[in-house]
């Protein structure tokens, strides 16, 4: 998809970083790291956020040569970050399920500890597979259901259903 003629403020640094200039890449990092870290904390949780954000920038460094300038660099990076972090979250969930299957049920059970007041991070961390990603992308990152459906390879109605379920669980957990 082509973007309109808005000049990309990152274009020069992207070209330099693609040729191996780490100083140019550092400037790109400084411009976009806060947004990527926030996204990482929301999707993979606080404990894995820094690792997830590092993974995003490593993948960006490796794939800069494939960036064609059809979208702004910030848009390209955000999409890359969502994809990398969704995979990161899935891997973390599989590892947890393998080494401590009971913990997954406990963590993602909507009934346990439902009366306690929780902060948003803890509550998001407890949302079950598939729900957290939809809640984060829709309510915190401003994605539409069409965009979420495309990113997660699910239907639009599934995205709407997961959002409602996620919000309903959060409502139980963070009830005043």
């Amino acid at each position, binding site marked *: 998809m082509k973007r309109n003629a808005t000049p990309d403020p990152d274009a020069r640094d992207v070209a330099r970083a693609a040729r191996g200039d780490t100083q140019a890449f550092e400037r790109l990092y400084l411009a976009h790291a*806060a947004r990527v870290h926030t996204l990482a904390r929301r999707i993979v949780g606080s404990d894995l956020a820094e690792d997830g954000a590092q993974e995003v920038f490593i993948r960006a460094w490796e794939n800069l040569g494939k960036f064609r300038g*059809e979208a702004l660099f910030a848009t390209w990076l955000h999409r890359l970050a969502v994809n990398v972090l969704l995979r990161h979250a899935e891997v973390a969930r599989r590892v947890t399920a393998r080494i401590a299957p009971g913990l997954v049920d406990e963590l993602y059970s909507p009934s346990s500890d439902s009366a306690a007041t929780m902060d948003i991070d803890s509550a998001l961390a407890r949302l079950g597979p598939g729900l957290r990603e939809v809640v984060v992308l829709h309510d915190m990152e401003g994605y539409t259901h069409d965009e979420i459906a495309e990113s997660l390879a699910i239907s639009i109605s599934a995205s709407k259903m997961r959002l*409602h379920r996620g919000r309903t669980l959060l409502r139980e957990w963070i009830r005043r």
Partner: protein
Amino acid sequence: MTTLFDHGDPWHDRLSEYLDGLLSEPETRALEDHLKSCESCRAALVELRAVVLRLHADASDEVPEGAWARTVSRLPTRTPQDARAAGWRVRRASLGLQTGTLRKVTAAAALTITFMGGIWAGAALCLAESAWTPPGWMHFPARPSRPVSPGGERTMPSRPTDSILDEWTPLRRLLSGLDQQLAGATSALANQPGNKALERVVLRLTRERDNLRSLLDSATTGNDR
């Protein structure tokens, strides 16, 4: 027995869509009629709205100290071949050209030159032999001009826009959502003066909205770099 997700009320599952303004006009009217008589859905709607408000108000992170040093230490080394290939691709991208486009342009140019060259060579031979006049179709037609609006500006064909084409669109959408939520929270606070939780929400939303607005203003005018 009803549970969190099975409460025997089909409207309950549509509350999020109602909050997000995704229901059709008739559905919205029907749900609003239902809300008048269903206390459970009304309570759920208020609480869901509070959840969405809190999610919207979630602040952005600071980058952890030393994060760049830890990241750069993990970057794989780029080989000179990688760098050359990447440099070529990026330069070509900056010109807006792709391999397929280049091939098509080259083929079209070759065909045009061959065709026109043949015609004009033939015409030149005819003219050299006789007083033959080339038919009208051999003249280059006048360049078609784009439709011009009454104001003198050229009208461009409209193109569909997509939210992901502009990196700031999600933020603008978030800002618009924040404005709406802030209006809702302010109105709720007016009905419940002294509600500390609502006061905190209004305060935080105002701060987030102002921060986001100034960020967007500076970003879109290019003053942040």
